[in-house]
């Protein structure tokens, strides 16, 4: 708005000022030019996925222009979706992600409320600890977890290895810390008087959380939900290390390990599988972009 006002003001004035608005216009044109370049860079891989997914294997191996589809076909899609295996991957991924989201939100919302509002001995340290936990990468933990699973099997007889539901137990280590961090930020921004008002109104802590804080912090909850879903959906290392049978695989690992058979790459199907696998987060993103971004920036801006 400020820009528009300045530009309008400049236009009505004598020639002296016109150069300023012209500068502004040039800056804008250059911005658009470079934005187009960057968008091309950023969108090439997904576009190329889409282009390839519409090609038959014959067209893919022909020495034609790879950037153009000469004979579009949906055969990759029908083949893949007609195949039980791919649907199993999809189902496993969906089940794992949905369960992880539920577990994550229950743990992180209650914990964030306790940390942000109720304060107990060591709560400040714990809040810092939560953030540090978020910085511990999966690649540091998969080996001891691998060994721990073996230990659990040896002592209790429960086999955690090679089951998709094991992922529901370990994915929260990736999603809970950041989700808690987001929620602490949102809860902390709710004025203190609101819980005091609820206290005087006779609400218990649980009622304050469920009737006041959760509805008020809904944008944060949506952002944290999206975040945990995306993390679970995209996680690659843990399922690669902990699951092997094809009926236990989740999408990313399933596509990489089963569609790539030795040196034979069925690129049409791989790209279709990858594109379909990327679809759920992309669709959520398309509809809830603002929440998505809010969650992304919350960690650093609300800290």
């Amino acid at each position: 708005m400020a820009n528009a006002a300045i530009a309008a003001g400049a236009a009505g004035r004598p020639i002296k000022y016109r150069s300023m608005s012209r500068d502004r216009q040039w800056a804008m044109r250059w911005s658009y030019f470079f934005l187009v370049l960057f968008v091309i860079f950023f969108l090439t891989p997904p576009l190329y996925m889409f282009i390839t997914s519409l090609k038959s294997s014959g067209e893919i191996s022909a020495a034609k222009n790879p950037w153009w589809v000469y004979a579009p076909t949906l055969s990759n899609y029908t083949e893949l979706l007609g195949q039980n295996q791919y649907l199993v991957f999809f189902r496993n991924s969906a089940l794992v992600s949905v369960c992880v989201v539920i577990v994550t939100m229950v743990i992180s919302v209650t914990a964030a409320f306790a940390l942000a509002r109720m304060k107990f001995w060591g709560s400040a340290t714990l809040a810092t600890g939560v953030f540090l936990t978020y910085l511990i990468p999966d690649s540091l933990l998969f080996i001891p977890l691998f060994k721990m699973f073996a230990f659990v099997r040896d002592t209790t007889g429960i086999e955690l290895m090679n089951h998709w539901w094991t992922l529901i137990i370990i994915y929260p280590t990736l999603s809970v810390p950041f989700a808690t961090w987001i929620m602490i930020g949102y809860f902390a921004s709710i004025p203190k008087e609101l819980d005091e008002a609820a206290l005087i109104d006779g609400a218990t802590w649980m009622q304050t959380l469920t009737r006041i804080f959760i509805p008020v912090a809904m944008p944060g909850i949506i952002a944290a939900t999206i975040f945990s879903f995306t993390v679970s959906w995209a996680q690659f290392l843990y399922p690669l290390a902990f699951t092997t049978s094809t009926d236990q695989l989740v999408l990313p690992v399933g596509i990489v390990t089963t569609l790539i058979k030795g040196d034979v790459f069925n690129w049409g199907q791989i790209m279709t599988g990858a594109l379909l696998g990327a679809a759920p987060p992309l669709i959520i993103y398309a509809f809830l972009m603002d929440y998505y971004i809010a969650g992304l920036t919350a960690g650093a801006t609300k800290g």
Partner: protein
Amino acid sequence: MAQVTLRKVIKKYDEVLAVRGVDLDIADKEFIVLVGPSGCGKSTTLRMIAGLEEISGGDIAIGGDVVNDVPPKDRDIAMVFQNYALYPHMNVYENMSFGLKLKRTPRQEIERRVKQAAQILDITELLDRKPKQLSGGQRQRVAMGRAIVRDPKVFLFDEPLSNLDAKLRVQMRTEIKKVHQKVRTTTVYVTHDQVEAMTLADRVVVMNAGLIEQVGSPHDLYHSPNTKFVAGFIGSPAMNFIPCQVEQAAGALRLRLNDKLAMPVPASRTNRYSSVVGKPNLVLGLRPEHIMETRPHTESDQHDFEVPIEVVEPMGMETLVYFTINGTEVCGRINPNAGGVAGQPMKLRADLSNMHLIDDTTGKVL
């Protein structure tokens, strides 16, 4: 309906004493205002009455029952917060009924009470709106409505008007007074604004540094403050404090402000001030309205003097003039038509019948 009693109430944060022993008796249906500068402990006192802060010592009783250990919801109080603390996701009706709903009050009863409160506050047509859709004044009314609906023993207000702009604040002030006249409930109201305190209160409690300085009606506080703090805090523009000495002069007392300027002390006060003759660290307290332009007719205890005016501030119905006596800036309040030009000397009149003499070492008014 209830009286509130505070006995030697103390609040300690770690090792810092925020409230250092407050004794206060609030009568049933009384409108009490706690006023003082920020950090004086007035909000803490209110929050201890509400039960939002634990008390570190002493007793608080509401309606004769000691409530030291009673959680806020069982104290039968209602509170209006500075930022209103309306639940943003609930509409006005839900905001007002939330407390009753938690208490499992029957639906019809809730509806009756909300409607009634809405009528008192003239917000009936806003009941479906969300707080976001309301103006500041409307939010303020809803916050009060939420308190009224509970029909509590005590209303607590924590600086409820400080988020409003000046014009609305005056309007809402009247509104609060009207509501109190309709719903005669014991009210404790905290503010840092002495005008609000004066206009609203049956009795004003002036607090400073965790202690009560003085309790009294607005009139008492204004005209006979006990301490220099109260004298300076109540009234705007603030009372002038001019260093002075009391001299013996032929059977009467004389107030010496500087080498050239001295005025006789009113005869009625001779006895009161005779003990401080010649003592150092005395201060003359005189409100700006008791320094005015000269008039042809002189009453007793009024004395004219001439000073160079430094700053002139026309306010419309009056003009403030500033000058220096004895190294202290002094403000006078003159008729706008009486002239008064910055940089030029002017004849002014001091009305010593309303003077205060303060011992600056103890801060007590003599």
